[in-house]
């Protein structure tokens, strides 16, 4: 489960990491012990069996990494606390001290081990080829070119991606996806011919995709490790000791068996940790232990609405909260900028033009990253919520200022002159005569932007905010009920935006003197 950061995501952050990455670190182990809490980061959108939403209780997180984090924390004498983060941003959360460790199917990888402190492996994974039942496809036949080219789906930038490209070369078309299970669904619906998955995913989701089956033995084994901040050797050593104890006591095996993840390959862990596993004789006889936890058959239809409607509505609340707090700030800032540009001191104008161009010309996501991941480098640590609200307000202030500028300019010059001729100051002419008339003009475009902002709040998921769209992604990843959830989520967005449009039309009518009673 390795994914390279996309160019756009890294651009804003990497440069600053290079500049400020070497800042002094506190002793995390001592900090964790003092706090009594070990904060571990993962992305629940990654899905099962790692960290995922309990399909029976959407407020609960489950997964073997949840159990592992809790077991390790218990060994350290502290409590584990989960922190949601976008998968490829977890190293940034770690670096900016928002989390203590990353446990999320992160591979042992040279470049990562350079940037972070890696623990010893806690799981041995391999790559599994999956294809539709009844179709004779394996690594060998795939390597023979067909016409048209066969299509193989992988997680974009993952080890599966690299391996498949190397092994199959030009013989097939490798299609990269951002989600773990998307390509499994695509094989089932005949859009792909095969997919390559990490063994835990292939095993866990087998019941969800009964039309697929493994082909050949797993290949190209690798290690999942826990990452801590660079230089935190004491914390990592303590984690290694904890995992070794869990391994020796058999607790880790039990934990992995619970999810059907224990296999012969895991015996390599014992050697790596220098411990002896309980003898094979201790293995429970088949049938005496409960069936491993795997993804169930997919829920469909009304059950989805009934089971997940509540939590979606709850996440829609976050969307509303972000919007109603940030938008008034954006409007106020935008108005100030527009007034400053039109009537302010000449020296101020290039500055304001620069602000508008800078903010309008860069993606919201980059701005959020800047606030969330760069400001901590210079000692400012805004929370995710503060970051989201400031980011949205600043981003939209640039757009609102342009709308207000157009609105202010649409008020005839004679209006200002009439006010000035009465002895009013320029400022009170603007405030009492120009702005009230401009506001009426700008209502439709401003409300248009409010609706856009409502949807743009989804970008905040990259800085760990769990709003409607992110919740939708997590849910659809863990339930595979994408059609129902898409419908329900769209309905919720409409339930937020349509009343806004109606309210705007009413406000517009109320402010229009032509429709006021004479």
């Amino acid at each position, binding site marked *: 489960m390795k994914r390279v950061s996309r160019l756009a995501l890294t651009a804003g952050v990497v440069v600053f990491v290079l500049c400020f990455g070497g800042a002094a670190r506190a002793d995390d182990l001592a900090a964790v012990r003092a706090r009594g809490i070990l904060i571990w980061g993962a992305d629940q959108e990654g899905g099962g069996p790692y960290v995922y939403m309990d399909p029976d209780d959407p407020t609960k997180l489950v997964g073997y990494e949840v159990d592992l984090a809790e077991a390790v924390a218990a060994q350290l004498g502290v409590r584990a606390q989960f922190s949601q983060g976008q998968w490829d941003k977890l190293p940034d959360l770690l670096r900016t001290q928002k989390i203590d460790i990353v446990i999320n199917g992160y591979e042992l990888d040279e470049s990562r081990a350079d940037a972070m402190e890696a623990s010893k492996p806690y799981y041995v994974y391999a790559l599994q080829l999956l294809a539709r039942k009844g179709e004779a496809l394996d690594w060998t036949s795939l390597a023979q070119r067909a016409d048209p080219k066969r299509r193989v789906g992988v997680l974009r930038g993952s080890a599966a991606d690299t391996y498949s490209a190397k092994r199959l070369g030009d013989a097939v078309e490798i299609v990269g996806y951002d989600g773990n299970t998307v390509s499994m669904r695509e094989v089932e619906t005949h859009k792909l011919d095969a997919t390559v998955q990490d063994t835990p995913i292939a095993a866990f989701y087998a019941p969800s995709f009964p039309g697929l089956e493994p082909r050949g033995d797993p290949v190209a084994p690798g290690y999942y490790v826990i990452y801590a901040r660079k230089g935190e050797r004491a914390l990592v050593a303590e984690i290694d000791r904890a995992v070794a104890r869990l391994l020796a006591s058999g607790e880790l095996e039990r934990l992995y068996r619970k999810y059907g993840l224990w296999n012969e390959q895991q015996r390599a862990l014992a050697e790596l940790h220098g411990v002896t596993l309980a003898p094979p004789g201790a293995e429970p006889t088949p049938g005496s232990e409960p069936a491993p936890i795997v993804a169930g058959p997919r829920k469909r239809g009304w059950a989805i609405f009934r089971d997940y409607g509540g939590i979606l509505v709850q996440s829609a609340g976050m969307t509303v909260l972000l919007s109603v707090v940030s938008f008034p700030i954006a409007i106020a800032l935008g108005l100030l900028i527009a007034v400053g540009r039109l009537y302010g001191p000449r020296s101020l104008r290039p500055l304001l033009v620069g602000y508008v161009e800078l903010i309008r010309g860069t993606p919201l996501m980059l701005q959020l990253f800047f606030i969330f991941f760069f400001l901590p480098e210079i000692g400012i640590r805004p929370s995710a919520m503060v970051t989201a609200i400031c980011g949205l307000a600043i981003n939209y202030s640039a757009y609102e200022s342009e709308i207000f500028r157009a609105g202010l300019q649409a008020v005839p010059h*004679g*209006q200002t*002159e*009439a*006010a*000035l*001729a*009465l*002895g*009013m*100051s320029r400022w*009170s002419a603007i405030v*009492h*005569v120009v702005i*009230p*008339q401009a506001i*009426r003009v700008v209502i439709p475009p401003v409300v248009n932007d409010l609706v856009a902002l409502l949807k743009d709040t989804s970008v905040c998921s990259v800085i760990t905010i769990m709003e409607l769209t992110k919740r939708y992604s997590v849910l659809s990843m863990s339930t595979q009920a994408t059609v129902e959830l898409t419908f329900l989520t769209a309905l919720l967005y409409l339930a937020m935006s349509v009343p806004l449009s109606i309210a705007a039309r009413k406000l517009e009518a109320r*402010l229009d*003197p*032509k429709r*006021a009673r*004479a």
Partner: protein
Amino acid sequence: MIEIEGLRKRHGQREVLKGVGLSVSAGEVAVLIGASGSGKTTLLRCINGLEEFDEGTLTVGKLIMRGGQRPTSTELAALRRAAGMVFQGFHLFPHLTALDNLTLAPQSVLREPRESAEERARALLDRVGLGGRERSFPHALSGGEQQRVAIARALLMRPLVLLLDEPTSALDPRNASEVLAILQELAEEGQTMVVATHAMTFAKSAATTVHVMSDGAMIEKGTPAEVFEDPKHEATRRILRADE
């Protein structure tokens, strides 16, 4: 009340006021006549401070402005309070009722309490024949009514002199005569006014002095009888013929 000497103003290369002089005593009604583009509007805008001038002096009450000097905001505010302005296009504030159009400036400039401003505003609206229309928005008023609101709006600031820039040019004859009737009454009450107009009948009956402008200069002045019965200047005769 108003004393103007040698006023010059340029718009780029073109000289629009070429050394204009004008003297208006308290209680007088000075009427400016002249073809369009002769400089009447620019002269009024200079008196109100909406435009700066390059040379000459302008005295309104005790306030003296000199050409080429940028007036301070205090001077401008004083000048505008002394000289109220009524525009050809009314320029009422469309988002405010007739009453609020009147009371906005007294509240914001004179810091007059709302109640007192409204009381005076109601009396003035009554005075211009608009009692009962206080709550109307400008769009619901006829052109003549709008211009009467604009006159009341300027008067509420108690200016020393009321400047009117072609106040009836945008109105049909019936509406125009309503407005002129109000101006006639104001003149009789002793309100000092400078009116740029093409309404010759009004000029004849209400003016104390008629000033004839042509191509940025004052070419003739006199009582209505002098100017209308016996114009000295060929240009004046042309203007009078055109506006008959």
